[in-house]
């Protein structure tokens, strides 16, 4: 029997030891009216070979596109060593390191991860992961509410150019606790937050959420916003792309005092796109706020011989100890993804990460220049951007996306997801994975699609 090691003799002996006649007897405490006897509405099992054929067909249907789509999930080159080491049974099939002495591998790795992530963000502390970027932001909001006890009301100001899915996620996750979410508007020309920040009173606002880069790829004036928030006793929650942080100012250095809580999606750090997960959310903060942090934390300590070692610490924040009073309900996190990210960051080092950021930036500039040189195509927002930008087209973005799909190019995101008025806008991302040929292929396919569209519309008009 697949995966079950018992021989018939084993079963007999075991039943005898227990003192029952059949395995069925072991379920005799289940009231008979609740018993079912089979799962026969399901299919019979397949063997691994047949399953392989089936799954290869499915994978083939989903693969093979040249990806120019970002919008929160980014294709980067992942060195082979990352997943070959991450996939070792000892990392893959262990669980939460409750028994520290039998988990020093995972624990030390997580401590190293916490270190790298804190340094990347310019903050003092990082936890050992949350589910993903969006849910990490929700946790950051809840953490801010617990931390900023000076605030009169649980009001949070959220950048209007935050990823819409992030906004939806925090709505779902923090709304039950009566937290008010309000929008900090962005400027229609720059795509960035208005430089004229709203008038607020001290203690009106728990925290301000800023995205750097914002959903359009644009780069915000983070120093000014941070200082403004701090002047009004609001905390600053930064949502950032970790690869961008190799190039852009780290949140710990924003303004006079730095952002207070930094979170985001860890996926760009060595995690494949993989239909959206598993990724991981990261969360960093100042040492002062560590006791309000959600998620696992690993501390360095010593063993009884004085030898250094690592263990879960500040567990009194967590649900398995504090239960109803925990900082979060999170238990299982995204450990394996963090394992990969740690190996990724080690392999690249700071300068490697910076190379990736710069190459992505340069590539996106190249494609943007080529596209905006086409008559009728313009850059929608005039702010500097990192590796993602928005163009406005003479037709709906969806038409172009469909046309480029036929050439196996995933052209970008139709911004009508954000608001129906943006339906002529296409959000395009280019990372270091794209060659000059790839970029040319995009431009050619794009031109070709535009010509078709123009000729069709001309025909129709005739």
């Amino acid at each position, binding site marked *: 029997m697949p995966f079950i*090691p018992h021989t018939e003799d084993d079963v007999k002996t075991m039943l005898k030891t227990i003192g029952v006649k059949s395995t069925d007897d072991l379920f005799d405490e289940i009231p008979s009216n609740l018993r079912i006897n089979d799962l026969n509405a399901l299919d019979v099992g397949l063997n691994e070979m047949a399953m392989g054929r089936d799954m290869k067909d499915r994978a083939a249907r989903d*693969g093979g596109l040249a990806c120019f789509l970002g919008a929160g999930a980014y294709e980067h080159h992942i060195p082979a060593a990352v997943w070959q*080491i991450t996939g070792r049974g000892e990392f893959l099939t262990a669980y939460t390191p409750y028994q520290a002495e039998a988990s*020093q591998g995972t624990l030390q790795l997580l401590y190293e991860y916490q270190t790298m992530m804190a340094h990347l963000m310019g903050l003092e502390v990082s936890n050992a992961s949350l589910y993903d970027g969006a849910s990490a932001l929700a946790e950051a909001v809840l953490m801010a509410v617990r931390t900023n006890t000076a605030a009169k009301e649980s009001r949070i100001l959220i950048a209007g150019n935050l990823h819409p899915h992030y906004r*939806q996620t925090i709505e779902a996750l923090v709304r039950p*606790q009566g937290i008010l979410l309000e929008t900090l508007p962005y400027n229609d020309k720059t795509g960035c937050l208005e430089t004229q920040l709203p008038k607020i009173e001290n203690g009106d606002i728990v925290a301000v959420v800023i995205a750097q880069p914002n959903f359009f790829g644009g780069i915000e004036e983070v120093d000014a916003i941070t200082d403004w928030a701090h002047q009004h006793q609001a905390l600053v929650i930064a949502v950032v792309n970790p690869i961008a942080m190799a190039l852009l100012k780290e949140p710990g250095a924003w303004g006079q005092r730095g952002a207070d809580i930094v979170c985001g999606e860890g996926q760009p750090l060595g995690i494949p796109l993989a239909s959206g997960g598993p990724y991981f959310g990261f969360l960093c903060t100042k040492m002062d706020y560590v006791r309000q942090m959600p998620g696992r934390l690993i501390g360095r300590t010593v063993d009884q011989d004085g030898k250094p070692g690592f263990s879960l610490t500040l567990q009194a924040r967590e649900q398995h100890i504090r239960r109803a009073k925990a900082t979060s309900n999170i238990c299982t996190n995204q450990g394996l993804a963090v394992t990969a990210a740690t190996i990724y960051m080690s392999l690249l080092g700071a300068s490697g990460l910076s190379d990736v950021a710069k190459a992505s930036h340069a590539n996106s500039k190249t494609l943007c220049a080529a596209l905006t040189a086409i008559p009728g195509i313009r850059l929608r927002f005039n702010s500097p951007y990192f590796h993602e930008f928005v163009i406005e087209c003479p037709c709906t973005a969806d038409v172009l996306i469909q046309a480029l799909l036929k050439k196996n190019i995933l052209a970008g995101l139709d911004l009508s997801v954000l608001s129906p008025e943006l339906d002529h806008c296409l959000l395009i991302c280019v990372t270091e994975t794209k060659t000059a040929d790839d970029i040319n292929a995009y431009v050619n396919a794009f031109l070709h699609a535009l010509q078709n569209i123009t000729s069709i519309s001309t025909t129709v008009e005739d």
Partner: protein
Amino acid sequence: MLIFEISAKGRRNHLQAPRLAPAATDIPAHLLRHKAPLFPEVSELQVVRHYTQLSRKNFSIDTQFYPLGSCTMKYNPRGVHQLASLEGFLQHHPLTPASHSQGYLQSAYELQQILSHITGLSAVSLTPMAGAQGEFAGVAMIRAYHLSRGDTARTEFLVPDAAHGTNPATAVMCGFRIKEIPTDKHGDVDLDALRAAVGPHTAGIMLTNPSTLGVFERRISEIAKIIHAAGGLLYYDGANLNAILGKCRPGDMGFDVMHINLHKTFATPHGGGGPGSGPVAANDRLKPFLPTPIVGYDGKQYRWLTTKDCPQSIGRLSAFMGNAGIILRANIYARLLGREGLCRVSEYATLNANYLMARLQQAGFTLAFPDRRASHEFIITFKKEAKTLGVSAKDIAKRLLDYGVHAPTTYFPLLVPECFLIEPTETESKEELDNFINILITILKEAKDSPDLVKQAPHNLPVRRLDDLKAAKELDLTWRE
């Protein structure tokens, strides 16, 4: 040695990082980074060697028996891992149009169907990223349900004292007050206390069955009646589904909504703490409130259903669609096993637990519920040993590590003192169980003959017992130069 201690300034390992002539950037200088982050500067071999060596300091299913109760540490089939890692799946961007996502969408849809059938509930959303997020979804759905009916008085959630910590933590995240329900001496919910607790403020109850005490709650139908009669709804914590696959169904027990831990019952790797996946299943009453996205199928194409399709949905719980890779793995696992294989899971998991329990009882260990059947797990308590020998459950757990066996869950559930929650799972052999029994017997003997050997354990691991107090008091959470 930390990776930072292997680092040397100016060491370069840039093969992986593609370089481009740096383009003139229009990003203003004050928005650029000025100080490189403190990352290690190490060669590829150093990275490979460091993390390979680190991995070897872990216990894992692939290397050890790992009977961690409530965690279902069963074999994670290698074939499942391989097929879920096919390049077409790994390359696939989550926002790819449905026309180019049919492979993944079909797999997700099938899993929704399978889970619906197994649980006896009519609809499933796969988006929650672990059990706790599944709990959140379910409790938030109950909240949304009451609110949708204008029933704003229901501010309390009932949680048995045996419940997993995530249960009360979740209910609080959903804005509820918690009422704890005690357990009777047989491990069942105290019905009188339950009756006394319910009322017009009751939004619902969170329950797992079999409970984390390792026993099946026999009066579950009565509990359901009590809660429903009071206008509350029932949430099922599906962490223990491995115990009842194909034997009974939460939907039939009267539960309205539940989560399933794919990383437990469906054998996806636990990854040193995660990722998992916690799909939520609901009956018709709660179906409209399921979190999005959900996969729909019109007989020809699979597509994502969003809040446009499900206007009453509690909304979105993550940026994309949950832990898709885990969902793929669960699909493959379920279809590899098929209808017979899935039924065998609970049979052999239960057989192993009851065998282990019987043998340990014969060997003089104290069972928490000696007159009950074990479900897929059971509890022994070292209360006696702690008193008479001064040897705690923790000491015995640490000593087990010396013998190359991972410790069971300790000190959980909280209401059984000095306890082990032991879950062998169906993929362990009788020989492995017998070995574990013999080790426990040996340790008990050691505890009598040379208690210090046990109290000072572990002795054979990369580190001796760690100073947790120091860790919490002198917080050292990141390495500094």
